[in-house]
């Protein structure tokens, strides 16, 4: 793998940037792998990367039906934070946060991780009680978190209407300074390049059409392009399509797939240098380095795989954003799209063994998977490498919906759900 550096940039400029090495190979599959990862999004590629790099399992295939990062990885609003309420979730997301902080160096790929802070606004007295509770829980778990009053919020975001005259006045917020945003495409590409360099085979435009199951054990996948590919273990990381893969294995998951919409405005001059989220008025907003305002909200309530949602959802989102930022009322929206998120009843992921032996699932991240990409990949890789779930993944077994040990993160999961 060619090492990226400032010097390399100068060197390649001499040849008009025409001789850059391909970031990853386009291989043909072997008959047998140690591990097959279904799904070439951020989580799947991170899983493959850590399998090869940290756990020494280099005979790995990633099978992606579209192109890398073309699903939710390239469709989310790129917010990264770890201020979750319960210990199990907080530890998992904070594990991811730790990896985010060294990710660009680790991958030798600039993922543009910008720790610009995230505000979660409170608009009612109960909001503020919940915020104080969550901030205290975060601090006990060693996560940076502060409770701010309206005046302090106004200082951080001077353009936001924090006056008492609005319909839902901002009473305060929780503030995580280490939180922020990252470049979502770069995360997929960086992990793909890193995994490829460690010997992982990545197959794009290769759809898994069935699982090969012999005597209750998963021994590989059937694909539309390369026929059967066999493996010791199979990990499914297919987000919104997880229930479809589960159906191939003959079982159901406690998931519903919903469209989640986002939109960006035309690029404007720098005006918002942090991330603002509000559960109560239902919207979140940040500004990308390119200048566009990146806006998202809750899911569309119906099940859907169509990667698009209904207009009223967008309308409600923009009503919320304009309530907070009347200054944006004349900003024109540029693009709008939807991704398919797999929501779990307790707003926490599933990182789990399944009723089928040697088949593992990493799914159920719902509306908040991007922030967990490195941590999710890392703990799932550890689990796949050893055939034994990583301690951080154990509380997120799919069987918690049988035992009742749910991890209710509806408060911290934020706007959606």
């Amino acid at each position: 793998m060619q090492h990226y550096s400032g010097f390399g940039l100068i060197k390649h400029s001499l040849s008009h940037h025409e001789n850059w090495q391909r970031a990853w190979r386009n291989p043909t599959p072997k008959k047998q792998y140690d591990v097959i990862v279904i799904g070439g999004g951020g989580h799947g590629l991170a899983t493959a990367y850590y399998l090869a790099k940290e756990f020494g399992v280099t005979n790995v295939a990633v099978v992606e039906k579209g192109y890398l990062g073309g699903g939710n990885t390239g469709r989310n609003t790129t917010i990264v934070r770890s201020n979750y309420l319960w210990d199990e979730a907080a530890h998992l997301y904070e594990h991811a946060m730790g990896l985010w902080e060294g990710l660009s160096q680790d991958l030798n790929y600039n993922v543009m991780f910008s720790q610009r802070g995230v505000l979660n606004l409170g608009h009612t007295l109960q909001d503020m009680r919940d915020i104080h509770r969550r901030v205290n829980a975060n601090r006990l778990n060693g996560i940076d978190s502060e409770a701010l009053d309206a005046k302090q919020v106004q200082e951080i975001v001077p353009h936001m209407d924090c006056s008492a005259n609005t319909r839902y006045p901002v009473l305060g917020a929780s503030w995580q300074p280490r939180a922020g945003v990252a470049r979502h495409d770069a995360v997929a590409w960086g992990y793909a390049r890193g995994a490829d360099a460690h010997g992982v085979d990545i197959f794009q435009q290769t759809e898994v059409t069935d699982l090969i199951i012999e005597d209750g054990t998963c021994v590989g996948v059937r694909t539309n392009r390369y026929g059967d590919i066999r493996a010791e273990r199979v990990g499914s990381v297919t987000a919104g399509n997880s229930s479809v893969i589960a159906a191939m294995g003959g079982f159901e998951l406690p998931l519903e797939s919903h469209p989640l919409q986002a939109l960006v405005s035309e690029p404007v001059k720098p005006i918002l240098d942090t991330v603002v989220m509000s559960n109560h008025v239902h919207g979140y907003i940040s500004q990308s380095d390119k200048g566009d305002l990146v806006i998202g909200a809750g899911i569309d309530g119906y099940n859907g795989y169509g990667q698009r949602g209904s207009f009223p959802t967008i309308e409600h989102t923009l009503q919320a954003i304009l309530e907070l930022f009347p200054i944006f009322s004349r900003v024109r929206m540029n693009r709008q799209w939807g991704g398919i998120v797999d929501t779990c009843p307790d707003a926490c992921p599933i990182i789990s063994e399944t009723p089928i032996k040697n088949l593992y699932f990493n799914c159920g991240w719902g509306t908040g998977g991007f922030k967990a990409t490195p941590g999710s990949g890392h703990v799932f890789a550890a689990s796949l490498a050893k055939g034994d779930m990583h301690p951080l993944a154990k509380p997120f077994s799919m069987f918690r919906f049988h035992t009742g040990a749910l991890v209710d993160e509806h408060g911290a999961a934020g706007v959606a759900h």
Partner: protein
Amino acid sequence: MFHIYCPHCCEHREEEEFHVKGQAHIARPVDPEALSDEEWGNYLYFRKNPRGLHHELWVHNAGCRKFFNVTRDTVTYEIKEVYKVGEQPSVVSPADKV
């Protein structure tokens, strides 16, 4: 954006008047005391979530406030059929037993 026919009002109305309540035809346990943890979990949380035809419960909450069932394609979002609670769908996918 859906234009949904309410079988109680006998009229098409905009999606905004309705609310979707998830998978239809989930039978309540006949003998709740006898259920195992697994059966309870399956009843409460595990769902079909198909890519294709889906039978789901909707409520006309800004209209007549009555419940009814919709058969809808979850990929094209096309509504195939609307029928009242207690009735069985006539449009079903081959793999699907209601």
